[in-house]
């Protein structure tokens, strides 16, 4: 049994959220630059130039890339041989979020109640997905998730007979409907299988795989490429003002499902796809 002080978790979470908001991942910057070379729309080229310039400026000035510093989403893989002492792990995570958004000058974007809508003032509570795994360590993936893109996400319970064509149609329909709103170029996370909530969680988790990494399964790697091709042939382009750069990547995660079902969730993130992780 390994003992971990909750303060270590607190500090790690704080740094993850500040760093994620200030420093865009190299994989995303690289992809933006790659598409800048390929983009044929003049407005699209200009948009991509500005987006790249903005990310570099944010890193240099240590300021949030985008003012929507998101709702704080975390994926935590907790080793079953770890004992956290001090605060509860959830309290420690929320304290880390609180400190990050205050000390990092990030926007507090969370309301206590979805209908009454009073701001909590510190960006808590976070949305935390726990998984108990083997071992003596804790892996924390932090993702400040902006809502311009979150609002454009969707889920559908397809029939098994809809098959892969049904999945493709639903993904394209969702991206088309999103149009200019989610700040394209976007990254499209897709969760296929499981139950309704499992598909939704997988679609968010899919967004964490670096753009430089192919899907480990050949069938799904091909499906990702096919979807990317179809999405970038929609013409939506950077900021929805036309062009070939609508998506920088498509990421699929799947899970076994029921004989009667084919759940599909599509979670969209903007070009400021922010996430950082740590292994404690």
């Amino acid at each position, binding site marked *: 049994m390994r003992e971990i002080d909750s303060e270590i978790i607190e500090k790690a979470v704080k740094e993850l959220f500040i760093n994620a908001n200030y420093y865009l991942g190299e994989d995303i910057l690289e992809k933006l630059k*790659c*598409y800048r070379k*390929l983009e*044929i*729309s003049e*407005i*699209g080229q*200009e*948009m991509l130039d*500005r*987006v790249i*310039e*903005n*990310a570099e*400026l*944010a890193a240099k*000035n240590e*300021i*949030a*890339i*985008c*003012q*929507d*510093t998101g709702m704080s989403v975390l994926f935590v893989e907790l080793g079953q041989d770890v004992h956290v002492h001090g605060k509860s792990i959830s309290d420690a995570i929320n304290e880390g979020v609180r400190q990050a958004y205050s000390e990092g*000058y*990030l*926007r*507090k*974007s969370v309301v206590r109640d979805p209908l009454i*809508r009073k*701001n909590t*003032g510190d960006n808590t509570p976070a949305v935390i997905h726990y998984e108990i795994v083997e071992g003596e360590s804790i892996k924390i993936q932090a993702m400040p998730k902006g809502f*311009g893109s979150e*609002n454009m996400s969707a889920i559908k319970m397809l029939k098994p007979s809809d098959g892969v064509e049904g999945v493709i149609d639903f993904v394209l329909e969702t991206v088309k409907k999103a*149009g*200019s*709103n989610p*700040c394209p170029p976007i990254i499209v996370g897709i969760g296929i299988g499981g139950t309704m909530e499992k598909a939704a969680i997988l679609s968010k988790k899919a967004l964490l795989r670096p753009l430089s990494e*192919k899907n480990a399964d050949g069938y799904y790697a091909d499906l990702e*490429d*096919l979807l*990317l*091709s179809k999405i*970038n*042939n*929609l*013409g*939506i*382009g950077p*900021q*929805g*003002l*036309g*062009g*070939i750069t609508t998506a920088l990547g498509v990421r699929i995660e799947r899970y076994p499902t029921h004989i009667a079902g084919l759940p599909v969730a599509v979670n969209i993130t*903007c*070009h*400021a796809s922010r996430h950082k992780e740590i292994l404690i």
Partner: protein
Amino acid sequence: MYNKITTPLKDNIVNELKAGQHVYISGKIYVGRDAAHKRMIEQLEQGGKLPFDAEGQIIYYAGPCPPKPGSVAGSFGPTTSGRMDKYSPQMIKQGLKGMMGKGDRADAVIAEMINSKCVYFAAVGGLGAYTSTVIKSLRVIAYEDLGAEALRELEVVDFPAIVAIDSSGSNLYRTEPGKYADKFDINSVLSKK
């Protein structure tokens, strides 16, 4: 390539702004988003006035990050304008000549833009860090309790934007994407892996 414009906007300037033009905006602009719009419209419906004189002005849909010590503004990019569609026709009737945010607008908003001569500027979504550098002064003018959603007045110099929908209703979001459909070759990115 960039047209420089200064607020408040006069009708003759508004009429000259055409969809697709790049502009640098300078002068005072007003900032409000979901919650501030809800309150402004409630005030109007109760027979009250807006907290600012909207005549000729631009409203920018945004909710900023707090500024770091020593800087004027924090990250300050646009939010999705579509959420303000419900309120915009009434706001335009108060004399607004410009709206700025990201994403397409509803037909009812565009109809009122044509009717009252108003333009819609697209700021670049996600351009928070850059935008903070063109803001020279900032003050909260109403609804301070709304925090990031409070109504603000900014003084900006060369704020970059594109005329996305002009006062005749010409709309880049509807005219442009069709031109680039089926022009992407997946092999151009696969070969770079």
